[in-house]
């Protein structure tokens, strides 16, 4: 999908819905949070593709590329985030997808949040984050 077609369609292009790829990486099957988030982002007018459980960083990056995603949302509740997220960010860079906004949700200890942000994660949403906070953050952050 072309990002901008012609000057006339610029407003239309700006208004195109934010495209979000959501995924669970690793072996953990806790998908309550990501399913609720998927639904809330859809209700907020975004296009959401949930790739399901047990994804590898490679598969998730491929999905983000194929779907022309603005946002990649990863849910991890197993504690494996400090291994999996760096792998994911590296793959994104290798594919030239630095413009994709990466958000992470799940059980993430406070001490790990700045580390993830230093890697390039835009924001970490821990349990209890209001759904609106997530959609508003994306509306404010994603450049279309």
């Amino acid at each position, binding site marked *: 999908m072309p990002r901008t077609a012609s000057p006339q369609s610029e407003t239309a292009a700006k208004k195109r819905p934010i495209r979000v790829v959501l995924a669970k990486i*690793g072996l*953990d*099957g*806790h*998908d309550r949070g990501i399913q609720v988030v998927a639904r809330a982002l859809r209700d907020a007018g975004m296009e959401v593709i949930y790739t399901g459980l*047990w994804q590898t960083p490679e598969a998730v990056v491929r999905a983000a590329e194929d779907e022309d995603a603005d946002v990649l949302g990863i849910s991890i509740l197993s504690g494996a985030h400090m291994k999996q997220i760096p792998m994911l960010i590296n793959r994104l860079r290798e594919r030239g997808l630095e413009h994709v906004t990466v958000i992470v949700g799940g*059980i993430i*200890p406070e001490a790990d949040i700045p580390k993830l942000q230093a890697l390039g994660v835009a924001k970490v949403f821990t349990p209890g984050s209001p759904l609106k906070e997530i959609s508003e953050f994306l509306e404010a952050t994603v450049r279309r």
Partner: protein
Amino acid sequence: MATDTKRTAAEAWRQALENSPTRDACFTTISGKPVEPLYVPEEPSETYEEKIGYPGQYPYTRGIYANMYRGRLWTMRQFAGYGTTAQANERLKLLLAKGQTGLSCAFDLPTLMGVDSDHPSAVGEVGRLGAAVDTINDFDRYFEGIDLGGVSVSLTINAPAAILLAFLVVTARRQGVDACRLRGTLQNDILKEFHAQNEYVFPPVPSVRLVTDTIEYCTREMPLFHPVSISGYHIREAGATAAEELAFTLADGFHYVEQSIERGLDIDQFAPRLSFFFNSHIDFFEELAKFRAGRRIWARHMRNRYGAKKEKSWMLRFHVQTSGVSLQAQQPEVNVVRVAYQALAAVLGGCQSLHTNSRDETLCLPTEEAVTIALRTQQVLAHETGVVNSADPLGGSYQVEAQTDAMEAEVEQILQEIDSQGGMIAAIENGYFRRRIAESAYRFQREVDAGRRKIVGVNAFTEDESQPIPTMEVDSSVEEEQKKALAAIKASRDNTSVAEALDNIRRAADEGENVMPALIRGAEVQATVGEMMDALADVLGRYQPTS
């Protein structure tokens, strides 16, 4: 006539009470006033007898034992274990030393999913959420210095449950303990994995066949062991309502009963060994109603629909864990209070064993300090509050009875809905359970976000800076250590025997034989969990959900 039955029921209860053992404890108030073991209406009506009755009597609304906690307290069983099994062994010994009365073992995600520590998908997960088990050597080390003949052991494992049961049998044998003496519980409830927790491997039908194999094996060889813990916990955590949790769980239980009967087992042989595992969430009275209604519904179906004759087959025995999702990352100290209320509901609801969550579980695996507070919460309930002195102390409350009846009616309606879709397997395949759970989870989150449901520290009474509490980190060297140990075993074991054992597992699975003996042989020759799962999957297939 009615008066006669009334007298009979009350007298039968009194008789049972007299025949029951009593703990050595003080059953008076803190001011020294007497407390009765049970309070009943002055003139019990017929409705009272039928619906509420006496503890230890059908339909068990008031509990499964005549004297409930005066005879024996619930088992305080904290779920534990991470890292290598040698590290997990230390945590188990610590909990025993602090007065815990049963063991509950956690396994890491690779083990839960039936892959070995050296599998590509295991990266970052080895030993993280539980102990890593690849071969029988790991299992031996898990229980080193712990007498398997003297303590009951609960294994939280599902898709590879039959394999870990084989490990337990072999480890016990090496300790000189015969399988027939083993006490404990295998979680082994694959149906809730399809509904909620997502740790399935094989498709639903062959998955249930493996559960039936373990029920059959335990019925014959391990009469003191609970081969399946039919679990609502994870269904609730995924977002189900209380009634959905209870209904889905009971439906799962009925499905295992039907499959076991079809296998040719006598219901009164296996049903007394079925046990349940429920959530205790934050709505106190709704939880109480759930536990009481659950006992009544299970008893009625087991007796009337499946024709079980033994009283033990009618009794719903259950473990409870307090609700993980109800705990909050904000102001985590407050979680101690939530857990205490939830534990109180479980005890007033008549549970047989209990795990109280630690305050830090929204942040990490529990620290030793947090686990100790959680265990102490149970000990305060048991020994200080006096709530254990009489059975079902809230029974007869207008609200409790009305909510119990309403819970029962809603559960019966959901059970009919499952039947009307063609039963358990059809309802799994058409996504019924997952749809309902997702719907309920979303509704709840919307209520919280809109501020109609207040959660302390989240959308009410928030603080800008919450006090950090100490958290635990799993040593990441575990993964390398475990992989090295596995490589060493693969190099030193007799690989011809392993190949033969794996062939034999495939053959048993293919010919519809009970796979337990073949898995026990595999355990003995040091076949890995992943190898045996792959052998089973060669025959049973792997499940790919449609949605």
